[in-house]
Structures are given as C-alpha cells and as structure tokens.
C-alpha cells in the first residue's frame, strides 16, 4: 500500500498548492486593527474536503484510524455495496445461470460421438484430484458464505427470521474467514501442479478455429488441456490471487491500511468474487451437465478412451506413446 499513499500525498500536495495559490490570505485573516486574528481564521469542512477526500487531524487516543474526522466516501462505499454490488452481482450470477441454461437447451449435452469404448485411461492422479476438490469445496463454502453478506438479508432473512439469520451469518463469517486458508492452499497446489500443461501453445488457436469442440463433426485438437480449460486456469489464478490478497487485507483490518484501503479491498474482493463465481459456474456446467464423460476425469480420475480421443487427442497420443515405451499394450485399462 506504499504506492497509493504516495499518490494520495501527491494529489493532496497539488490540491493544497492550487488552493493556497487561489486563496493566499485564507490562513491568516486580519482583524479590524490590522493584526492577525487567529480566532477568525476559520477552516471549514467544505474547504478541507476540497483539498483532500477526508478530514483528518490529531487525536489523543492511540488509535490511528480515529484521526479521520469525516470521510464522505463512506456513503460512496455504501452506494457501491447496497446498489452497484447487489444489482451487478445479481445480474452477473443470474445472467450466467440463464446463459448456461440456454446453452444446455441449444447445444445440449455434448455426447461422446463414437460412444463409450469401455476402455479407460488415467487423466488425473489422486493428488491432482485432491488439490482440485480441496479448492472446489473451499470455493463453494466461501462463495455461499460470502454471498450471504450481500444477498442474505434479502433472500434468507425473511425465511428464517432475524435471530436465526444472525446466528447463521455469524457462523458463516467465521467459516468464510477460516476456509480462506484451505482455499489458498488448494489454489497454490493447483497453480503449481497444472502450470506446465496450461502454457499456451499453437494448437490452442487451431482448437479455437475448430469451434472448441462445440460444433459437431468438427474436431478440435488439444493437448492435456484445451484453450477453454487454460482460460479457466489463468482466470482462476488471477481471480484467486486478487480475492486472496484483498481477503487477507480484510482479515487483518487496519494493519498498514487506512479506511480508504479497507473500502478498496472490499470492493476488489466483492467484484472479483462475483466474476469468479460466474466463471466457476461455467466451469461446473461444462464439467458435469454440459459434456458426457467429463466429470469422471475429476471423479474417478479415469476417462473413456473415446472421450480422450475426441477432446484431448494430442494428450492421448502422448500418454499411449509413454505406455508403449514401457512395453505395455496400448489402449489398455490404466490400472
């Protein structure tokens, strides 16, 4: 937070200089006898608020955040939280669900064109699946407990009543705060173990040109991860880092941050989280309802050979090549 402080200081200095130039006698009003009259040298709130976004002073109590006398930005933050975030969040999340519903109605479930071969090949090792589900379960818990802060009082409060809703929300707050650690652990694992296979390659462009496997009779070639999966990886990485950093700032309030930083952290946390939820909704859709044979990759870890052929042909060829070199019959069950 060193840079924003410096920038703010710069803005304050520029504002101060411009005002000092415009009203040079403001600080020293003269009395009728021509002598400076300190009592009449009034600083008023509006002048101070024109110089800086908030009025700050000196205080006797050892609490730095109490030095802020007036911060009108509180009302701006309220507007963000109660209007922009609530409507924006609702539109983005409900909109995503509607779009996915339409996709299901129009495109339908993407079947394994050649049908199941009955032969399986290992796609995700146990540790990879553990990392995924650690992050996934944490994400769902964080998502629901987080959405409760913005939407709970509209959706849940009228149903369960104020006392039960308070108990639920208090528990949800602590669950949210402590699940953050398992989410970050899972996120770090995912970032590390899937990093190499998510680097962009030339074949990703070809995959895109072929319609990403959404168009029948058009084969979209891909390695271990296709471009869609890679985008989910990189967007999750970016969003995950953003929610984690902003979340930890909120978890340790006013440690090296001031009121404006805390508000900004909350705005970043909420906006990124809503977009993250939308991204993961799409990810969940394509991994379950949207595509036959996809879920078992993260479920049992093994996928059907024909599914692999249709969606990850280059990866399959590589895997089969490996097995050949190890002297095993190709296309055999992996275990």
């Amino acid at each position, binding site marked *: 937070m060193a840079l924003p402080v410096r920038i703010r200081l710069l803005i304050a200095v520029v504002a101060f200089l411009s005002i000092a130039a415009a009203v040079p006698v403001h600080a020293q009003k003269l009395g009728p006898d021509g002598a400076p009259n300190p009592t009449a040298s009034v600083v008023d709130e509006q002048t101070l608020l024109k110089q800086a976004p908030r009025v700050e*002073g000196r205080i006797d109590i050892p609490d730095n955040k109490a030095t802020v*006398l007036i911060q009108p930005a509180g009302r701006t933050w309220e507007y963000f*939280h109660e209007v922009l975030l609530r409507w924006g969040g609702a539109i983005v999340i409900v909109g995503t669900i509607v779009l996915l519903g339409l996709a299901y109605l129009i495109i339908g479930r993407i079947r394994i064109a050649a049908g199941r071969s009955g032969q399986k090949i290992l796609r995700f090792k146990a540790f990879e699946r553990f990392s995924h589900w650690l992050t996934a379960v944490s994400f769902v818990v964080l998502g629901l407990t987080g959405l409760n802060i913005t939407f709970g*009082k509209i959706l849940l409060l009228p149903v369960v009543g104020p006392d039960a809703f308070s108990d639920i929300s208090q528990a949800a707050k*602590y669950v949210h705060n402590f699940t953050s650690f398992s989410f970050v652990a899972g996120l770090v694992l995912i970032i590390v173990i899937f990093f190499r296979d998510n680097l962009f390659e030339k074949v990703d462009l070809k995959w895109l040109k072929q319609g990403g496997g959404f168009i029948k009779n058009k084969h979209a070639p891909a390695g271990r991860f296709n471009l869609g999966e890679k985008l989910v990886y990189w967007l999750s990485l970016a969003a995950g880092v953003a929610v984690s950093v902003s979340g930890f700032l909120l*978890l340790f309030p006013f440690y090296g941050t001031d009121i404006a930083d805390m508000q900004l952290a909350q705005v970043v946390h909420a906006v990124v989280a809503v977009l993250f939820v939308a991204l993961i909704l799409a990810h969940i859709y394509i991994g379950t309802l949207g595509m036959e044979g996809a879920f078992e990759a993260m479920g049992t870890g093994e996928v059907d050979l024909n599914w692999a052929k249709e969606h990850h042909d280059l990866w399959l060829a590589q895997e089969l090549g490996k097995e050949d070199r190890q002297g095993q019959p190709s296309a055999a069950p992996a275990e």
Partner: protein
Amino acid sequence: MARMKFLCDADRCIECNACVTACKNENEVPWGINRRRVVTINDGKPGERSVSMACMHCTDAPCAAVCPVTCIYPTEDGIVLHSKDLCIGCGYCFYACPFGAPQYPQVGNFGSRGKMDKCTYCAGGGGTEASGSAEEFDKYGSNRFGEGKLPLCAEMCSTKSLLAGDGDIIAQIYKERVLKRGYGSGAWGWMTAYHEGIEV
C-alpha cells in the same frame, strides 16, 4: 416529532475532552472503545479547530444500510440504535460510517471484533432489553433519553460547544452565535450526515 442531532461548534471547542470522559463514565464504556473523540485539525497552525465527534445519527444512515443482518435502525426521534444480539461483528458499519463512530471491543483479526458498540445518544439499546433496565445498561450504557434527558457529553460541555437536541433548535442556536460573533466554521459533518448544512 423532534429530530435529534449533534452539533459541534468548533469555534468554541477547547479540546478539554470532558465530553469523551463524560461519555465513558456515564455509559461505563470498556477500555479501547471511544464512542466520542475529539479530533484537532491544523494542530498548532492558524485556523486550528477541534471537533468533538461521535455517531451523528445520520439521515439515511449508511451503517444501517450496509449492515448484512440489518441490526441498525433509526428510532422515530432520528436516533440510530442497534441490537447487539443480532450484530455479527463484520465491521462493515465502520467502513460505511463517515465519522468513524462504530467501535469494537477487540482488534478484529479473523473477524473477531466482537459486537459493535457506538454512541446511542444516551438512549439505551436497540435490543430487546427493557428500557432503563440493568441488562440494557450492561450492554449499551445509559438511557438518559428515556428519562427525558439529553446526552451527557453535550449537557456538561463547559463551553457549550457541543450541542444536542432537536436539530432545528440547535441549528437556530448555532445560527444566532455565528451572526453575533461574525464567523463560524460551519456545522461539522452536517452535510454528510443530514444532507444539509446550516445557512447563516
């Protein structure tokens, strides 16, 4: 119905902090919680002013709007109260408050702030406790308002800088003061709290 407000005439405040002490004593506020504080602007420079600040009991109170469990609400006198039974200690009211009024008994890492505490206008609590009861006093402090009295901070202010009472009346008092002495730094926080200043 009277609309209760605070007004700090900064040109009279001598930064004696007696309002802070009176508040702490009257409400038996625990250590670390400062429902009222005095902030000095331009300390040691020409135009230095001190302003006594607590919850301003805002019109369209932003704390009440952002509270995820809606435990903060205005009374018919315009006093903003809250229920500590419902408060979950999320800290959002502090981010929304333009005056830094909400206080928490703990520092607050991992969301462990405890129940929010703030100036109640010496009007007891917004919970289910009976008005003027010992339970209410333990949780929220004094209920002078229920006895027809104004907040102690303003009542014992030695220079009568801090005014409490019906917003129209204290605005009128301030207006007369400014006209008589010929200057005034304005009603601090009024534009932000009540969407109106005091025209003199």
